[in-house]
């Protein structure tokens, strides 16, 4: 059983349990009845703006109740919502919107976009504005015709766009319910979801959606300037469920008290995004919460494998086993299956896989949908017990401070110097900045370090500039010529430790 339109769930809960809390933001709590009424009115509001079925609409907003209502109203009228980074400049937002043929962008009230795309500002009193409207404008499109677009991070110019149907989201929800069944993730009323990051990141949206599908409550914290405030928010509620990033896990471990759990009241936490180190996973179950999972997934499929708390002591160096409904293969560059234990390209087959890239996006990318398979673009191996081990990811994102640095951008900029023969960039955990950018360079002829630093300063933004540059004779590579990031990372870490000590 499944609803046709994902927004239907809100209306069903409004009928079944009208007073159950749905969304909480600061001192404001809205019941399912109120949220359904607002989504219905917002659908009429959108119609009034001329927004209709199959129109792609960008959303560049921070998390808020209004944002969630807008998103579900867009789905309700059959439009195609696409989350955009709220911190992007106006020029970049317009460029992305044009690239993906978006008809309009919703922004925060104070933002002024340059010309090129229709802009709708979400004003502070939007909900009061909606109160004057009535009716409901639901699309009759079916679950395979209703789409959303997820933009994957691409910090140079254009992000990649992936189309997913409402039915595929429903399948992902079912898969999630099965994976985390042991911790009653979606057993009504579904715990208390704390939304710890922007819903433009697929995993956070999926957790929000799951919560709404089961009629649970979601806490929407603001975008805190100090991450410790998020830790306090997670600790303030009972029976919390949540998706968290690797960097958040690092803060949890640092903030955990001696001899006690940081989150004794948490129902379950799932980490994903960038991988954690095995010691960090073990520290999470020992010091933060024993109900800790690691998930491995990408925007094109949501989830590929999952590592349960009970598996962490023995299998912390893996990202767990493929989840039910996902077939994982390891293949070489000619798509020939590799034996157990060999590293190669990961590919998956599943009903969870998205439709594919937006039609106008034919860029060469490691993440691919072809021949019925989905290639997340990552390198991995399956061991004899079926656990998946990763060796680097296609989205080589380094979280340096508050900024996401896309590793290949930095690599390309460094490699552009005539005296650089080969270069690679990795991120290593930093106690102060989340991760720091470390570059490995193979020289061609003579190259002064000062000269390369000058070059980096000229062509890279401050967060992109490498914190450290190491010169080596050759970059380590695995079979097939792919860079061995794991080895580079451990090299960088051991160098950093030597310098630190």
């Amino acid at each position: 059983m499944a609803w046709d339109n994902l927004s239907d769930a809100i209306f069903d809960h409004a009928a079944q349990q009208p007073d159950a809390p749905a969304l909480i933001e600061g001192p404001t709590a809205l019941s399912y009845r109120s949220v359904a009424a607002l989504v219905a009115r917002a659908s009429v509001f959108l119609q009034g703006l001329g927004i209709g079925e199959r129109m792609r609409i960008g959303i560049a907003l921070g998390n808020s109740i209004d944002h969630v209502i807008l998103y579900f109203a867009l789905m309700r009228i059959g439009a195609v919502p696409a989350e955009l980074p709220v911190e992007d400049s106006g020029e970049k937002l317009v460029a992305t919107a044009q690239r993906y043929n978006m008809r309009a962008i919703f922004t925060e009230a104070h933002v002024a976009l340059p010309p090129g795309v229709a802009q709708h500002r979400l004003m502070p009193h939007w909900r009061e504005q909606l109160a004057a409207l009535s009716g409901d404008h639901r699309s009759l499109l079916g679950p395979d015709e209703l789409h959303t677009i997820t933009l994957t991070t691409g910090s140079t110019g254009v992000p990649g766009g992936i189309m997913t149907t409402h039915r595929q989201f429903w399948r992902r929800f079912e898969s999630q319910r099965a994976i985390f069944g042991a911790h009653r993730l979606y057993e009504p009323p579904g715990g208390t979801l704390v939304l710890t990051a922007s819903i433009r990141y697929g995993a956070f949206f999926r957790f929000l959606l799951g919560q709404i599908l089961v009629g649970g409550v979601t806490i929407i914290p603001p975008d805190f300037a100090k991450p410790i405030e998020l830790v306090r928010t997670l600790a303030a509620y009972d029976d919390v469920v949540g998706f968290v990033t690797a960097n958040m896990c690092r803060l949890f471990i640092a903030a955990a008290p001696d001899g006690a759990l940081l989150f004794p009241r948490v129902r379950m936490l799932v980490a994903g995004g960038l991988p954690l180190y095995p010691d960090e996973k073990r520290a999470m179950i020992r010091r933060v919460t024993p109900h800790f999972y690691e998930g491995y997934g990408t925007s094109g499929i949501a989830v590929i494998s999952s590592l349960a708390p009970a598996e962490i002591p023995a299998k912390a160096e893996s990202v767990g086993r493929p989840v039910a409904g996902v077939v994982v293969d390891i293949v070489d560059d000619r798509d020939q299956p590799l034996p157990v234990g060999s590293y190669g390209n990961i590919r998956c087959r599943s009903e969870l896989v998205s439709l594919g890239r937006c039609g106008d996006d034919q860029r060469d990318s490691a993440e691919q949908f072809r021949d019925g398979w989905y290639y997340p673009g990552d390198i991995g191996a399956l061991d004899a017990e079926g656990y998946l081990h990763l060796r680097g990811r296609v989205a080589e994102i380094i979280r340096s401070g508050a900024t996401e640095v896309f590793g290949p951008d930095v690599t390309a900029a460094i490699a552009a110097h005539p005296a650089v023969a080969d270069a690679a960039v990795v991120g290593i955990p930093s106690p102060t900045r989340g991760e720091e950018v470390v570059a490995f360079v193979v020289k061609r002829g003579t190259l002064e370090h000062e000269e390369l630093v000058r070059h980096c300063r000229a062509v890279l933004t401050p967060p992109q500039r490498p914190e450290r540059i190491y010169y080596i004779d050759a970059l380590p590579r695995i079979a097939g010529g792919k860079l061995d990031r794991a080895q580079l990372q451990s090299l960088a870490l051991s160098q950093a430790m030597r310098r630190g000590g």
Partner: protein
Amino acid sequence: MTMDYDNLSDPIFHHAHTRPDAIAVIDGRERLDYRNFAALVAKASIYLRDLGVAEGDRVGFLLTNTIDHLVLMFAVARIGATIVELSIEDNVETLAATAAKYDIRTIFAEAHAPAIAGVRQIPVGLFWRREIEGKSGDHRTAAPGEKLLVIMLTTGSTGIPSAWSLTHRVFFRTSEVHEERWRRAYKWDSLREHAHFLLAYPLRFCWFQVLVVLQMRAGATMVIVPEYNRTSDLLRAFAAWENAVAFVTPNTCRYFLRVAPPTGMLLPNFRLLEAGAGPLAAEEKRGMIAHVTPNFAEIYGSTGGGLITALTAEEMSDKADTVGRPPPGATIEIVDRDGRVLPSGETGEVRCRPLWALRVGDEPKFPGTERIEDGWCYPADIGFLDAQGYLHLKGRAADLIRREGTEIFAPEIEGVIASHPAVAEVAVIGVPSPTRGEEIVAFVVKHGALDHDELARYCRTRLAPERLPDRVFYADSLPKLAGQKPDRLRLQALAAAEIARKSG
């Protein structure tokens, strides 16, 4: 003057006896009444004693705003130790140097904070209250309010902040001045009935310590509003509370003006919204009254002089081009370079009294910073008084650069750059920046060969990161005014043109 309390913590205990169930602090999901707040402060006073913190000790705080932070702060006051709020943004080297310079031996810090050399660092984690659970009793100092101190740090010259000391007595006197001012301006009989004081900025900014004391003295409710990455979240938090009282910066006002509805008020729930810590244009102030809240006021003050002038909502229509008049009990004068008092209408340097805070350590050597002289406070501002006694501000005595919320004093950066042997001349100015408020731009005249990287390295080892120039332009000579001082206006125009050329 009315009878007042001695110790900053006393009002909490007073309200705990007279109105125990009134809410003192709201932080996220927690609502703490005065009875329980006083109980926590008392337990924490014993905890501090057990830790060996003694009367007169300087105790640093490196914490975000939380109930635990307030409990500890008032407990430190209660035992007669000195509160020193540190900046959580500072790096560990600066913090260690600050602690050493001002003899701060104990610092309460977030549990995940890195270690600071040379101090006893006590973590205040999520479960800090367990540490005081078993304590009983109350350890209040007998010292009178004029002997008890709070130290405020302000942005300093070499990356290490400069320090000012205030007595508990002065805090209460200032609270009284504000209450009296509000009573007169807004006909408020009592602040405490249902008022929510929104604490939205770090406590190291002295106005916010005043706000906390004022609210505790009045017995009102403090709502802790965390810091956000985006002002839209701050606005949502502000709009959520009825009868709100808050203090904001001019930039926040500008944000409110941009998103205010064409009709009606952006913040109809506000009882009082006061702006300060920077100038607002007259039309901006009138816009605040027309579109944000009719209960908008402006205050002008300094660390040494405290509240110098205030402009009420009623005065905005006629006097929006001023920063108002001094509160009851305060005096301001305009003086010339030789300290002679100027008649109304003539422009000179502002000075005021009574003094609010005194410097700890030496007066700074740089001209143009706030100074105390012969019982007067000189906030280093230029202005004039009109016939009705309203103060018109014309600018800073020396160009102060406000970069990313930090006040940076141009001459100190000039001093560092000028000390490089290959620099003949330098001028540093602030240039408006869409992202940073202002950017630091240095104009350098070389003396022989000078590599830019070499100068950048030189600066990096001598200036705190927020003081490093964002751009350095090399010139053959600097435009000068008659007095041989660099023509800063001309330099600003040059810099703006150069930046536009480079980005275009």
